[in-house]
């Protein structure tokens, strides 16, 4: 537990990066974590090619883990192509979060990832399989 709430996690929670709603935007999606009911939305502005992320923001209220995870995730997405977003590996999202995530908090840590996938595919994405994500290792 002490490893989970490291200072940088709490800093992202108190002052999240990329928080809010982009207006105008090209892509928008909202989704929720069924275990707590927390809702999160994401808005994405694409560049002129409509293929790459010009700007991104997330919004909603949630726990420190979901907020920090979305804050850290969105920091890394500007300039990435939609294909790159689609092929994001949830294991990398967990790894980039940099704190140990167990099964009880996995959905918190992956809520931002799931909302992002929803925005990119334009429909509700599936939760990644818990066993795959927690087993670690590289993408198949």
């Amino acid at each position, binding site marked *: *537990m*002490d490893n*989970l*709430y490291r200072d940088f996690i*709490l800093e992202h*929670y*108190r002052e999240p990066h990329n928080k809010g709603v982009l207006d105008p935007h090209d892509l928008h999606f909202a989704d929720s974590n069924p*275990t*707590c*009911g*927390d*809702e999160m939305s994401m808005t994405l502005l694409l560049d002129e090619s409509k293929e790459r992320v010009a700007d991104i923001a997330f919004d909603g*209220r*949630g*726990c*420190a*883990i979901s907020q920090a995870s979305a804050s850290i995730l969105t920091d890394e997405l500007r300039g990435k192509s939609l294909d790159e977003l689609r092929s994001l590996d949830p294991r990398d999202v967990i790894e980039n979060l940099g704190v140990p995530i167990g099964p*009880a*908090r996995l959905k*918190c840590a992956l809520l931002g990832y799931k909302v992002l996938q929803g925005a990119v595919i334009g429909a509700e994405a599936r939760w990644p399989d818990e066993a795959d994500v927690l087993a670690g290792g590289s993408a198949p």
Partner: protein
Amino acid sequence: MAIEQLRPDVFDGVALRADFPMFDRPHRSGKPLTFLDSAASAPKPRAVIDALADAYGHHYANVHRGIYELSEDATARFEGARRELARFIGAPSEREVVFVRNATEAINLVAYSWGRTNVAAGDLILSTEMEHHANLVPWQQLAAETGATLEYVAITDDGRLDLDDLRRRLAREPKLVAINHVSNALGTINPVAEISRLAHEAGALVLVDAAQSVPHMPVSAVELGVDFLVLSGHKMLGPSGIGALWGRRELLEAMPPFMTGGSMISKVTLSGTTWAEVPLKFEAGTPAIAEAAGLAAAIGYLDGIGMANVRAHERFLFEQAWAALGAIDGIRLLGPASPDEHAAVISFVIDGVHPHDVATVFDGHGVAVRAGHHCAQPVMARYDLPATTRASFYVYNDVDDIQRLADAIGATQRLFGTA
């Protein structure tokens, strides 16, 4: 924070932990286990675990079938458990007690079997804003399928049922009022006997979800005056996989079966089937045989303490915990303040900290609580909260747990810099 060190003269919760092997399990935090999630499911005393092993080891055969000693023995024990449960909940007859998997299944049984034959388009069903999803979703489904209307009795800002709102809605003559006895999300104790009286005057039947009351206080179906009562064994120190529906006999007899198959028939031919008598009519397939023995052992254990003593102990713990938590800055407590109206289930919010984070930090201190919507999302919406943290107490809890709960709250506030 000052916690009164007096224990209630009824019993010592700390001493009872010796009866529950789960408290011997080392916690990964290295700290003693402070178990405050009994409203979700309760640990089992050794008496229950032994009864399960004994049933499987020495008394196991299928019930209601075999013409041999072992099956007669198993059947007698299974029916004995039914008798014990009937007595425990003040049912007039064990023939009115149907074994099911849990309270959820019991409510579904009523919603399907009674509901689909007695509720039609245009009829009104009343539930409340404070129900567990188990006493809400089955009625939504019934309403959607029959064209009936489902309305919810409002709750007040302090978490009590709005009886004026109930009276207004009863004037429109609903068919059924489905209400919990104790709210799992707020801890509110509802005045079910009074609600029953009002509902019956309006011509409605009453189903009470007693999953959170039967384990914690003396409950009598007859005294409550309800028509259906449901419970889960696993919340009352018994095994998971067994629960019960009690219903007035004439209602049960008039209802069609819920599930069909073996055990619940009287005679089957290829052209048709007649049903067994109540309660077997509602018990298709092999039931939870050993679990019934375990449930009987749980009842025996609770009877050994005395349900009035259980209630007195928990009332004391509620008062202590309510005062201790209320004295902490930055805490919001939900539900009524009066111990007459509030069971030992305390839902709270720590300002600036999400309940999931609260529960994770608490876990690091060996404190097990529930965080989330408690399967009661409309309650969370009512108070504009995404979720709450819930501490629920039982016989093995005592003031030391309240102290550790308060300490864990302090540690959480320090970690998040909110106090």
